[in-house]
């Protein structure tokens, strides 16, 4: 009888994977803590989650320059890209947890499962980190599903609300369909190249013998599955309903976290398998054969135009932000058109900026919702005077989302524009510029309601007192949104290095 020949991965590898390991551990401890206090003292799982996220964040900062390490059975790779994204995800997770603590939708007196919410956010952070690190089809799929399952639960978190339950159900069904589509594409790729590893797939594709048409079908199917995660047209249908129905802190997390994770995954997967690399001989041909640039450029243009045009008509601020996040996916895809390093660097930087400004805008909605129980634009009239500090910070976020010069959003867009204009894709840049102008209208309609519209007679004009933590967090997000617009060198440098490490560390 032959013996099993098992190669257990080297446990020393875990040293490079500490942030993820800590987050997974925090998830379990937070759950147990919640069990021990029987859900009556939500501060305990909250404190555990914050402590875990901060510790993991500290390790992630320490490991910002890890070199390129393929660890744990060649399933994940820790390199500059992974280090960049896990820092981003841990930041987003921490902001979400802290803000959820102050949100009535999560912590209100009648709410249940408060402890689980924090634990799940921590786990989602870990799963998103894995998405950015996967270098094997199996890990790619599993990490996407892990993020997906957590999202389904969190979307339906307010289980006594019909809207929230509907959001969850829609998310589950669309998620399942898109997973099936993506798996079909992945299985075609596996069949063509005989490898589950990204670089193995690349080697298989470079080796010739690959049917162009089969490759085209496979790539389109995979893109379709992934565009669902990032909510690009035509796979965006779930996004507005889910963002509107889910509790607002969850929408904030969804609009930034899984989206950035989807981009991280797409960057690693498509760059590794298709782009021109050191072994450039056949690769430029591959991208040409399937006409990758045109495919993504059209998707990008349609996504941003659709998102912006529909956002124009929204009177619910949360739903408007949902459509605006679709439009931003369109801008981000611009960096993806040419699969060049400039483009990918622009995506990384824009994702950071987008995370700051979009989280900020959503969290303002959370803070206001605590008091007004409404997200309707009509109820925002006069808010600029009822909550002046928060109002001004909201203006910063909205102006940055529009891409007005002194703010970070402008610099981020600038890099994306350069990436496409570098290679003479002027029509795409023009469409994007026109789109930015359109977006000015609906973002500033909120500003107008808050500051310029005269409140109706007898309207409640008493000042709103926000939670101190909300002021702190809004400031933490608003200051870099302003500052990155002026001093961006440091952070674009970080993005550049992250991409450089991925591209040279094949």
């Amino acid at each position, binding site marked *: 009888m032959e013996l099993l020949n098992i190669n257990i991965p080297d446990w020393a590898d875990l040293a490079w994977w500490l942030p993820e390991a800590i987050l997974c551990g925090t998830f379990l401890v937070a759950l147990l803590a919640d069990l021990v206090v029987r859900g009556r003292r939500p501060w305990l799982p909250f404190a555990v989650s914050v402590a875990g996220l901060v510790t993991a964040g500290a390790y992630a900062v320490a490991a910002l320059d890890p070199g390129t390490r393929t660890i744990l059975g060649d399933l994940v790779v820790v390199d500059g890209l992974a280090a960049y994204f896990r820092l981003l995800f841990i930041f987003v997770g921490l902001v979400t947890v802290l803000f959820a603590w102050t949100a009535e939708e999560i912590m209100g007196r009648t709410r249940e499962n408060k402890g689980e919410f924090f*634990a799940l956010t921590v786990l989602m952070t870990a799963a998103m980190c894995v998405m950015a690190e996967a270098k094997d089809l199996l890990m790619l799929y599993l990490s996407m599903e892990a993020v997906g399952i957590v999202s389904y639960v969190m979307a339906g978190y307010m289980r006594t609300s019909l809207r929230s339950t509907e959001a969850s159900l829609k998310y589950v069904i669309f998620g399942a369909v898109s997973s099936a589509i993506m798996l079909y594409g992945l299985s075609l790729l596996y069949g063509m190249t005989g490898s589950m590893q990204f670089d193995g797939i690349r080697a298989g594709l470079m080796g010739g013998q690959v049917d162009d048409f089969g490759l085209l079908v496979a790539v389109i199917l995979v893109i379709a599955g992934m565009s669902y995660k990032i909510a690009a047209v035509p796979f965006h249908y779930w996004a507005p309903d889910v963002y509107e129905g889910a509790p607002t802190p969850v929408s904030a997390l969804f609009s930034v976290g899984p989206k950035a994770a989807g981009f991280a995954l797409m960057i690693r997967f498509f760059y590794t398998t298709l782009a021109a690399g050191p072994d450039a001989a056949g690769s430029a041909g591959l991208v040409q054969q399937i006409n990758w640039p045109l495919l993504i450029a059209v998707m990008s243009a349609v996504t941003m135009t659709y998102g912006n045009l529909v956002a124009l008509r929204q009177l619910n601020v949360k739903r408007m932000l949902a459509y605006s996040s679709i439009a931003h996916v369109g801008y981000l895809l611009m960096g993806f058109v040419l699969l060049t390093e400039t483009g990918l660097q622009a995506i990384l930087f824009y994702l950071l900026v987008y995370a700051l400004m979009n989280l900020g805008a959503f969290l303002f909605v959370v803070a206001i919702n605590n008091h007004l129980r409404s997200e309707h634009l009509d109820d925002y009239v006069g808010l600029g005077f009822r909550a002046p500090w928060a109002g001004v910070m909201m203006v910063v976020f909205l102006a940055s989302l529009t891409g007005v010069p002194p703010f970070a959003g402008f610099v981020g867009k600038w890099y994306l524009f350069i990436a496409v204009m570098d290679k003479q894709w002027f029509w795409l840049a023009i469409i994007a510029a026109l789109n930015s102008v359109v977006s000015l209208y609906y973002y500033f309609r909120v500003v107008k309601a808050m500051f310029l519209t005269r409140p109706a007679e007898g309207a409640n004009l008493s000042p709103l007192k926000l939670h101190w933590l909300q002021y702190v967090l809004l400031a933490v997000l608003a200051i870099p949104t302003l500052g990155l617009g002026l001093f961006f060198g440091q952070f674009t440098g970080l993005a550049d290095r992250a991409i450089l490490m991925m591209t040279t560390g094949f």
Partner: protein
Amino acid sequence: METFLFWFCGAAMVLGGLMTVVQRSAVVSAVWLIFAFVAAAGIFALLHAPFVAILQVLVYAGAIMVLFLFVIMMLQGPVLEGERRRMKPALWPAVAIPPLAVLVLVGTRIADHGTAAFTTPLPAGFGSPTHVAELLLGRYLLAFELISIALLVAIIGALAIGKEERKLPWK
């Protein structure tokens, strides 16, 4: 023979899948799902993965479906009632065309060039229980752990959303 078996199992699986979706009684749906699972096991067997095929029957068609049926019966087997609403005929092409197009395109390609374009030769010992065990407990250990965490989350989520009944808006 192999080709015939493939088409047979494939057709059975598609039929099973369709019937699962269109049935109005949850129990009947579940039984059709078993049918689809068994057909999938047949396809695994054809793909030189006998061990996975057996697991598919044992675990999915067997254990998991029994659980499914128990749960459905515990919830007293809901049968959809009320008016039968059909999809607007105008929507049929939108639903049917994309999958059919992929099917026809890939199919004609395979008919022209053979399956070589979509396949690579199998390594020796592929799909044996030994091979599966080596991969599952060795190289793919991390993936294995990730699955267990994902399933844990699913259980916790199901509990959090579906536990004891409070006042729900639609009751």
